[in-house]
């Protein structure tokens, strides 16, 4: 696999006067077609890192390359933004048109997608986030979760090579959260779209192929979900957590129950507990 994104010695601060780096000497490559979850406590630098991917922010030091494009290359800005679609942390800031379907059509229109195809993409994207019935509604007058769904639909309709999602499910109901995660996974698996997803929900992070953990502008853990979530103490010490099933197993192990492997899902947890209980009989 070739790297699609590479951060090379990236350091960043918002202003010269600031004493500390917000990002400090980050070296990270993300493969084409991979699905990466980024975790970290509030203020650890996740959104700042994400905004480097489509040149909303430029490195103070170091370089960021996306699909071979140097994000500092102003002449390539359009090409860059065509490749990277971004769902921002606050969907409110993202609404650009007064009617829902126009809002969703905005990015593909800008990319010069033919009208018939735009229609198709908008219909599909609205369906994917269960907002078809709101297609003609006023985008500014929606509930919090509805706005978030529209923001996600907007980026889906763009069909970029890479989608960056900054806490995309923070305001969604449990059903909506499942649907969005499913859609993201399908885009990744079926269409090879590279996904970078920031989240505070550990049971969403386990759906990624790779989990990157940030702390104070540094990457402190990086691996597949089983690897990363086996570091329970370390994760807790940086303000994070593990999925509930993982936590239960960790506690039981601490109490002396013989458990070896890390579990992440309710199924895996039930399986291990079942075998333990059976073993007793």
């Amino acid at each position, binding site marked *: 696999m070739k790297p699609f994104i590479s951060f090379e010695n990236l350091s960043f601060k*918002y202003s010269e006067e600031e004493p500390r780096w917000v990002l400090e000497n980050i070296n990270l490559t993300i493969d084409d077609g991979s699905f990466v979850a980024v975790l*970290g*406590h*509030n*203020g650890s630098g996740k*959104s700042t890192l994400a905004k480097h991917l489509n040149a909303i922010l430029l490195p103070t030091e170091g370089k960021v390359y996306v699909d071979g494009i140097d994000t500092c290359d102003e002449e390539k800005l359009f090409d860059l933004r065509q490749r990277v679609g971004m769902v921002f*942390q*606050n969907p*409110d*800031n993202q609404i650009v048109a007064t009617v829902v379907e126009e809002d969703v059509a905005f990015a593909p229109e800008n990319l010069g997608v033919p009208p018939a195809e735009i229609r198709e993409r908008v219909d599909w994207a609205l369906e994917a986030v269960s907002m078809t019935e709101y297609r003609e*509604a*006023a985008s500014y*007058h*929606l*509930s*919090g*979760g*509805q706005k978030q*769904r529209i923001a996600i639909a907007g980026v889906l309709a763009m069909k970029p090579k890479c989608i960056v999602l*900054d*806490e995309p499910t*923070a*305001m*969604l*109901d*449990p*059903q*909506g*959260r499942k649907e969005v995660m499913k859609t993201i996974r399908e885009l990744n698996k079926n269409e090879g779209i590279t996904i970078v997803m920031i989240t*505070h929900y*550990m*049971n969403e992070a386990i759906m990624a192929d790779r989990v990157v953990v940030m702390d104070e502008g540094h990457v402190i853990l990086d691996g597949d979900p089983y690897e990363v979530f086996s570091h329970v103490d370390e994760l*807790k010490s940086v*303000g*994070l*957590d593990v*999925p*509930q*099933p993982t*936590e*239960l197993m960790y*506690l*039981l192990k601490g*109490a*002396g*129950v013989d458990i070896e492997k890390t579990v992440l899902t*309710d*199924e895996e*947890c*039930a399986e291990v*507990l*079942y075998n*333990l*209980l059976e073993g*007793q009989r």
Partner: protein
Amino acid sequence: MKIEIQNLTHTYGAGTPFVKNALDDVSITIEDHDFIGLIGHTGSGKSTLVQHLNGILKPTSGRILIDGRDMWDKNTNIREVRFKIGLVFQYPEHQLFEETVYRDIAFGPTNMGLSEEEIRERVLSAMEFVGLEQDLLDKSPFDLSGGQKRRVAIAGVIAMRPEVLVLDEPTAGLDPKARDDLLKQIKKYYKENRSTVIIVSHSMEDMAKTVDKIIVVKGGKIERFLPVGEIFADAESLSSMSLDIPTITKVFKKLKDRGVDIETNVYTVKYAYELMRSRLLGEVRQDA
């Protein structure tokens, strides 16, 4: 404080093509010192409902009584009501507007006419409440991370020390530790001040370990108002309303489905741990 909502209907966009009954003839009574969770699908009417509790929105029809007095009666001072019933908005950005974090949190107490000294004390203790570092005091609230903004918005309401605390998705955007710490602080506030608390949330896990009773809203109507245990005992109807049960509960339902004789009313990891520890280690010891 007792809050009685009587036949509350709220219509958005009356007279436009997008007219929408966001609340439809809702009646419910929240008793003094209740600790309530409010859940419901996207667009069900949760934010609309809570914005009525401190008079941000006015009923299209129906009444809201605060300790027996109609909130919109001309003899009621709505400003006073807003000091007593504090609302944290779903989007912190809708609440932040001052130049510095300090001034933002001080906004409510300043309006209440408190002394400089008292204001300062309240701002600092509110920052501690939400786990905000003091070095952010002079920063612009707009130059903060998402989770930091959320904390400032919550601190601004806490600094008013309201009798009724209403929070619209307060843990969205908080990291797991901040989420846990905040819920613990709210619980402490609830106990120490004998206050009333209403939390809107999409996290079933947070609800299970925090509140006593849950209101379920669906399509602008109240579907359920029951103790936590009874709400989560009915997984099927929750899922039919786009909701869910905590992940840990699913583990025990799966065990039960596989024929294990085990209880399924397990809603927190803490309880699950105690249960399994005694099943696994307690029995092992007896056998030995």
